């Protein structure tokens, strides 16, 4: 390679590496702000903001969804498989909201530590399969448990 080209190559590589390092540091320092939601463990540990709105993500515990009263109010428990938080929401839930699915709720904690959600979004997983495959996976895991 000719010296002039080599010099340009080095200059450009240095520029790209420099930008990458700078961005890396910037992202690292803003890491907390880039999290779209807090986990239930964060909330139980008191890391979530007390008086302001924030987002809480987790999996809806199976069998925990209940509708106290006649209204639109739904109460359910969220978990990240270590700590649980109770959520109350009044409104229409998205199509993909079901027990055992991940969701993200936007709202704030009340004095009792219950999360009062203003908005509930469903987080779908990265698995795509036909219903028959899902059914056979289920029976397979059930029969494995039975043994």
């Amino acid at each position, binding site marked *: 390679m000719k010296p002039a*080209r080599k010099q*340009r*190559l080095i200059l*450009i590589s240095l*520029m*790209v590496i420099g*930008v*990458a390092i700078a*961005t890396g540091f910037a*992202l690292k320092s803003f*890491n907390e702000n*880039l*999290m*779209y*939601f*807090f*986990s239930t463990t964060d909330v139980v540990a008191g890391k979530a903001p007390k008086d302001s709105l924030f987002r809480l*993500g987790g999996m809806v515990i199976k069998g925990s969804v209940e509708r106290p009263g006649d209204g639109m109010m739904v109460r359910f428990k969220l978990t990240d498989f270590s700590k649980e938080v109770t959520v109350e929401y009044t409104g229409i*839930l*998205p*199509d*993909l909201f079901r027990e055992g*699915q991940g969701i*993200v709720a936007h709202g704030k904690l009340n004095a009792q530590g219950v999360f009062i959600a203003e*908005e*509930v*979004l*469903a*987080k*779908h*997983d*990265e*698995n*795509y*399969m*036909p*219903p*028959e*495959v*899902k059914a056979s996976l289920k029976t397979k895991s059930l029969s494995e448990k039975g043994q």
Partner: protein
Amino acid sequence: MFLVPDIVVRFFHRMASPPHFYAFTQRLMPWLGTVFVLLTLAGLYGGLYLAPADYQQGDSYRIIYIHVPAAWMSLFIYIVMATAGAIGLIWRIKLAEVVAISSAPIGASFTFIALFTGSLWGKPMWGTWWVWDARLTSELILLFLYLGVIGLYGAIDDKKIASKAVAILALVGVVNIPIIHYSVEWWNTLHQGPTVTKMDKPSIHVSMLIPLLLMALSFKSYYLIALMQRSRIELLKRERNSQWVKTMILEADK
């Protein structure tokens, strides 16, 4: 250089010459067009008709056959554009500059399609058109990078300087590409994690995966077609005073 077979080196040397590129792409076009049509028909037939409905999302998931290939292309084209820009800067190859700037509008379109179809998909599934999570935001920044490249190129009259400027802008923006790809792993996002490109086997059923890959190839071939057509026009504009363009036009007049 010595590891690359001689015939490949010669091919690239010849492709870098504008008249040869112009003639070669003209001959390639009908073939590419056929490949594109066949791949698209096969992919759409497989995706919309043969593939089964999803266990969670029913038929709504079928937008994946546009959304995911478009999102892949938005990243792929950016890498091509930045690489071509770097080659143009270092080796001063005119054709590389042309490829870089011709890629920008195509990449911007694919980014827009990915964002738009993602929004359509998000409303019924997540319950919202748009959220400011890391994946969606970094993809939006990618769209702005493309628009920045197009705008910067248009703003500078001297196209030699313009090419250098956009190459540097594109190279600075390269840092966004790994951020987009890994955003769903580094941070909590509403967008789900990777399906096809994970290390272990993809978590999509094979009957759904094959049409998806066919659509990805179809989008790739569309990009090649669009890129070549745009590059040919850009070349003619830049080389309008050169001998080969004059000879070609005179021959066409006869």
